């Protein structure tokens, strides 16, 4: 098997129902997605909510058929041979509330293990072992309805690993987890992949730091299209020649972002409101352009409270590719939905 996952010009269009039958609309969720993931890789799909990450996972887990193109998981075609793929995969989604509240953690996990044909004794042994790894061994006999959101998510994560899949899909696995729990989960994910070179993990996230820390390679996806795909280091390297500055300034006094956007040498600028003032993040073609930026600010009596030059992050790569920050893209989609 050359690739654990391969997609070839994969596309998916949803038919959406309008308020009236005649108002049927279409939503292009995925467009010409071609990726190749090797066995043993921890691959990240990065993008804002609504970018198409979950749709891609659904296709790869045989839950959804593609409208165009093809996809293979563990060497089998997702549309033609789903029954061969299913014993080899598992999936965990962030914030899911699967299982039954009246069952204990152990019982819920045992139940799901049986759907994959695990011997009961082996399942119970692994449940204990995995719960210990995620720090939940004292919750073995707690009813799952009594678990906090974070603990419930940890239980779901154990459910995914329990069946020893060849390919595991984690859709936003750390959503809703506190910092400590998210860190534990990330550490566990990395270790699971490193333990056995035949294991492959595809992770979707909109936390850039998570992708940077965890993934061997990552694809940046927006509006259903893969915009870039490489190792986090190489993705950031594309911005190595740029100068990235973060400026904390007093209120903008009506100064619009268009002043900077049209300024020669400014590649991208992102504005965030912060504590009554503003936070401006610039990607500049070269350092001297900062002089023009500072001049533009001071001529409007805007005070610079803090100025930092920093190394590029995956968030900067996203901004560079999309033209907006992930937060702005998500805000834009939320407005469209309304």
């Amino acid at each position: 098997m050359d690739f654990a996952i391969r997609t070839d010009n994969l596309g998916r269009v949803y038919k959406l129902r309008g308020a009236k039958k005649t108002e049927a609309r279409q939503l292009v969720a995925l467009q010409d997605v071609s990726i190749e993931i090797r066995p043993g890789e921890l691959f990240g799909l990065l993008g804002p909510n609504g970018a198409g990450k979950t749709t891609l996972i659904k296709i790869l887990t045989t839950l959804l058929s593609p409208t165009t193109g093809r996809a293979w998981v563990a060497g089998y075609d997702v549309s033609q041979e789903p029954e061969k793929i299913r014993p080899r995969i598992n999936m965990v989604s962030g914030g899911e509330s699967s299982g039954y509240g009246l069952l204990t953690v152990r019982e819920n996990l045992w139940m799901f293990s049986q759907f994959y044909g695990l011997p009961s004794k082996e399942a119970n042994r692994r449940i204990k072992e995995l719960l210990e790894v995620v720090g939940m061994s004292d919750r073995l006999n707690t009813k799952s309805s009594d678990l906090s959101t974070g603990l419930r998510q940890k239980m779901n994560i154990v459910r995914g690993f329990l069946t020893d899949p060849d390919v595991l899909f984690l859709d936003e696995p750390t959503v809703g987890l506190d910092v400590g729990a998210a860190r534990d989960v990330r550490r566990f994910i990395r270790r699971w992949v490193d333990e056995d070179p035949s294991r492959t993990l595809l992770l979707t996230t909109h936390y850039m730091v998570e992708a940077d820390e965890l993934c061997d390679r990552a694809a940046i996806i927006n509006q259903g299209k893969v915009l870039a795909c490489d190792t986090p280091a190489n993705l950031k390297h594309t911005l190595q020649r740029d100068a990235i500055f973060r400026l904390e300034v007093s209120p903008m006094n009506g100064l619009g972002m268009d002043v900077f956007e049209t300024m020669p040498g400014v590649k991208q600028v992102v504005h965030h409101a912060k504590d009554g003032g503003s936070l401006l993040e610039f990607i500049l073609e070269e350092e001297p352009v900062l002089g023009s930026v500072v001049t533009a600010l001071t001529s409007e009596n805007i005070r610079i409270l803090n100025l930092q030059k920093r190394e590029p992050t995956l968030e900067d790569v996203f901004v560079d590719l999309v033209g907006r920050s992930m937060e702005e893209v998500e805000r834009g989609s939320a407005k469209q939905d309304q």
Partner: protein
Amino acid sequence: MAVQSRISKSAGWRLFLKTVIARAYPRVVAQQREKSWMFFDILLPLLAVSAYVFVYRAIGAPQEFIGFVVIGGAMTAFWMNILWSMSSQLYWEKEMGNLALYIIAPNSMMAILLGMALGGMLATALRALAITILGSWFFQVSYQVASFPLLFSVFLLAMIALYGMGMMAASLFLLLGREAWHLSHLAQEPVYLVSGFYFPIRSFNFWVAAAASIIPLTLGLDAMRQLVFPSGAALGFLTVNVEIAILVLLGGIFLLAARYLLAHMEKLAIQEGRLTESRR
């Protein structure tokens, strides 16, 4: 954690069986953990039974009618289970996020439904038994069973046909989406009436009774009454043997329809992407 050796997993009929047992487990074990079931599933049906008993006593109906009501009251538990824990269950599974996990697992969805049915049947049998014992004790009902093997066969066939119907309805209700909830409400009281839960179905004219016989409990109940009360045969709708034959037929039709609809539902889910998606 040390490097794991890959686990050997069951497939084929072993996987099917494991899935049935695992999905039945929450119903058989977990449902008993909420003690409120004793109030809602035993006491409330007993109140409905009592109301009919007092009406029958007030109008001087034959003593067998009291027994008819107790048996009918016990069997309503199964109908409630079919409506609320079988027919609408896949819809709830979708909302909870379980349906997608069931579909991507290597098991058969038919095994999941069968597990739901088996678990529901066993849990409800406990409730039905409690209603029968308590009702018979309160209202001094005496039984004279003509044939225990025949009685057991009728009960079993009625359950197979009834839960086959529930399995079929589960896929159907899922395709209907949120309207399924209303359908369950709609099907509750009218079925109590036409299935003769509290009176012999023979009281209706032939065609109404025949139409009501599509609900397997109608004939199952009628045949059981004929087998446990001396005057039951005289008040029966059809002979026990004919009712058994119809129940066998209904069981076969409903199970086949369940299988077909389930496959159709899964196909639609994958094509349209809506049936496993509670947000869209």
